[in-house]
């Protein structure tokens, strides 16, 4: 390597890190990326993207078993599970090499190795990279962005064992479809795996310690999600206490207590999806002014750590653990370094999507959180059954719920469940980011026939009445 001096070093090549590097290159900063595993990070290799490929397959499997409503008859639809998994891996590979190509095009050097902070030399920070070939190189730059991401939280007794107990990682590359599956945790990750395996044909039990599934979503949405999952044959246990796993050589038995009632189930596989922890280890944070709180680096609103010139973005810097939050922080952080005027992120303007069937998407305050924050709210709901396109598509189950500040007309939050809602939520995100009120939303003309019309109707429902329900 001829050059080791840069304006900016980005440690981690995920959706936070590689985006930071691309933006820095656009702004004519000299920048390098240090990546220990795969470009694209968890998102692209072991998260967002491969799960979407799997969920697409499970959705097709569902449709193949539901063709009668469209007038088709298909005898004995089958799938090759190895090919389903193979396609998911191929998609990840394609996109990961896409990131490599983008960085190459932007002339951003990538150091394949594990980077850590290694002190200061003059006005520059040093980052020591243990390269994959065993050598090491020291890079220097006045600015360092840490974007090392996060990994699955491991609870005692639920450690991935390579056989019965999986984290998301093993769950993405199974050898065969488990017959009976227990999913622990009904956040986005757990729910997506539960949905995938159920729609592929596994018997799925989803357990959640909170009193409802998807506990960060609005209560109405949790309720509808549960109903839909149960209709698909999923077993749901909320407010559940899990006993120790009892492993035999062929399966696992576990006692689950719900409301004082105990039941014992036997399963072939267990997916543990009980949250994530930040990758803060071995980053050279010891002895610096960088503060770590519960595995996450503490930053200010502009992603600055306690150490001047060192920034942390994405999962490493805390919730919400979303790729698009990491990418946005990346751009903001780099622009601030380049001296541009930036706007801090408002977490109530970050959408969240879960790609289970039916899909769930939301932004901003739930009704309960809005009330807890002291807002007097106006709520509108519109069910998909009143939407022509949804019925024509054979997707009549869904709901759009909007929460407005009754005083100002501010759209505080929007919560959706049903077909394609993950593609539609951005409409409300734009409204919330642009600070539109109910007046502009009411005046917006939505195309007919689209499922998005239900977004308009929900607003009308909050202010005097939907037209089609």
């Amino acid at each position: 390597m001829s050059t080791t001096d840069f304006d900016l070093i980005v440690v981690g090549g995920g959706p936070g890190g590689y985006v930071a590097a691309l933006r820095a290159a656009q702004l004519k900063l000299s920048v390098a990326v240090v990546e220990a595993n795969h470009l694209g990070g968890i998102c692209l290799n072991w998260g967002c993207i491969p799960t979407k490929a799997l969920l697409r397959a499970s959705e097709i499997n569902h449709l193949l078993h539901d063709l009668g409503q469209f007038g088709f008859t298909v005898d004995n639809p089958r799938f090759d599970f190895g090919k389903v998994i193979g396609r998911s891996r191929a998609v990840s590979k394609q996109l990961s090499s896409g990131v490599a190509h983008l960085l190459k095009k932007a002339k951003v050097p990538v150091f394949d190795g594990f980077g850590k902070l290694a002190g200061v030399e003059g006005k520059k920070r040093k980052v020591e990279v243990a390269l994959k070939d065993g050598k090491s190189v020291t890079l220097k730059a006045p600015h360092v962005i840490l974007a090392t991401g996060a990994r699955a939280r491991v609870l005692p007794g639920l450690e991935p064992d390579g056989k019965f107990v999986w984290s998301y990682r093993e769950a993405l590359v199974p050898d065969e479809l488990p017959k009976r599956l227990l999913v622990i945790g009904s956040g986005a990750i757990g729910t997506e795996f539960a949905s995938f395996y159920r729609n592929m044909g596994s018997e799925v039990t989803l357990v959640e310690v909170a009193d409802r599934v998807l506990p960060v979503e609005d209560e109405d949405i949790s309720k509808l999600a549960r109903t839909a999952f149960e209709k698909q044959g999923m077993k749901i246990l909320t407010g559940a206490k899990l006993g120790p796993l009892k492993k035999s050589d062929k399966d696992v038995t576990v006692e689950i207590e719900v409301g004082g009632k105990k039941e014992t189930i036997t399963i072939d596989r267990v997916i543990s999806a009980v949250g994530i922890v930040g990758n803060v280890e071995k980053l050279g944070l010891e002895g610096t002014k960088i503060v770590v709180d519960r595995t996450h680096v503490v930053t200010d609103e502009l992603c600055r750590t306690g150490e001047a010139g060192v920034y942390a973005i994405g999962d490493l810097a805390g919730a919400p653990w979303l790729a698009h939050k990491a990418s946005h922080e990346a751009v903001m952080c780099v622009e601030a370094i380049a001296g541009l005027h930036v706007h801090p992120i408002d977490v109530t303007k970050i959408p969240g999507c879960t790609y289970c069937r039916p899909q769930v998407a939301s932004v901003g305050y739930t009704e309960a959180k809005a009330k807890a924050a002291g807002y007097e709210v106006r709520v509108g709901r519109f069910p998909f059954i009143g939407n022509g396109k949804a019925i024509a598509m054979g997707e009549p189950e869904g709901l759009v719920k909007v929460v407005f500040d009754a005083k100002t007309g501010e759209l505080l939050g929007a919560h959706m469940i049903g077909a394609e809602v993950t593609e539609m939520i951005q409409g409300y995100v734009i409204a919330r980011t642009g600070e539109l009120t109910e007046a502009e939303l009411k005046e917006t003309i939505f195309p007919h026939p689209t499922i998005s019309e239900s977004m308009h109707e929900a607003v009308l429902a909050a202010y005097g009445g939907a037209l089609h329900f």
Partner: protein
Amino acid sequence: MAIEILMPALSPTMTEGKLARWLKKEGEKIASGDVIAEIETDKATMEVEAVDEGVLGRIFVPEGTEGVAVNTPIAVLVEEGEAVPEASSAQPNEAPSSSKAAAPVTAMPAPLAAQTSAPAVNKGTRVFASPLAKRIAKDAGLDLTTIKGTGPHGRIVKKDVEAAKSAGPAQAMASAAPVGGTTAHPLSTMRKVIARRLSESKSTIPHFYVSVDVQLDALLALRTQLNAASPEEGPDAFKLSVNDMLIKAAAVTLRRVKGVNVSFTDDAILEYNDVDISVAVSIPDGLITPIIRQADRKSLREISVEMKDLAKRARAGKLKPEEFQGGSFSVSNMGMFGVSSFSAIINPPQAAILAIAAGEKRPVVKADGSLGVGTVMTTTLSVDHRAIDGALAAQWTKAFRDVVENPITLVI
């Protein structure tokens, strides 16, 4: 992208004008809504407002340039850090290709009082604010023009309005009946224009003042006589005020002493062919100067009827721009408030203004040398010394006194 600023047309008939003054320098940051230059026509001085934001990259037409054709690029606005074009892309005589899309300026009239019609704030000054920010500001009674935006491109967002709200402006404090401290009343657009124009007048025009006491008895007697001649009612009925007669007196005097009916410019003193009297009228939160055009040629009755109409519409905010823009000389009368004397600030680009105080009973020495009682008022002429010297001002005040004290002139 560089945006050319074109010479605006201040009226449908305007083909060229004088670029009177640049208010921004090359390299200065411009926010949309900033007044960047002043344009003069024979009739009025108008302000040019920036529609876009950026940096004033280069000035193509230096200030003081006369006969600048409409749509000629006068400057270029660039983004920060962007290269500045050496010269304008369009030749002055070329058709203005970019005039619609880029149309980077709006002309805004800048008389003493700019805004008279709609009560809506910011008319003509585009304020960028989110719909939510606008609504919260409206509900809180906050003027968005007083709030600094921190959103994209300086857009005012909810956070800014909330901050302004909690900063405790007028509204919040009014209800709390504060002890001590101050209560902030946000400036209206009119107040801002008045503040700027008059500061500019007083700080750039070398004023001097000539006072003269004028005996009113003859004029009052004539007024009584004339008013008695009015029909009781009907379309021809009239009731002349002292002010109507003094407007006419000033107009007649200006016709006699033409050197005061002028404007000073860097190259020439412009003498107006017509005598157009701007009459200061007090309106809520400011004042405005409707104009009696060619007042020297109008009868007292015409002036009286027109003045009543103008004053009424001025207070209702219904004057058309041409009714208060322009004028060659101003009259400000505070007699009705019992003021014994005052001096006024010149209304640019005019060169003089007459301040009229109250008529009072004062001891006077009559022609025969005996002492008597007369109705006397003190009038003060404020003069732009660049255009008018002391002797000329004195000549004017003497002529004015002669006209008022021999008011028969007013009806000839």
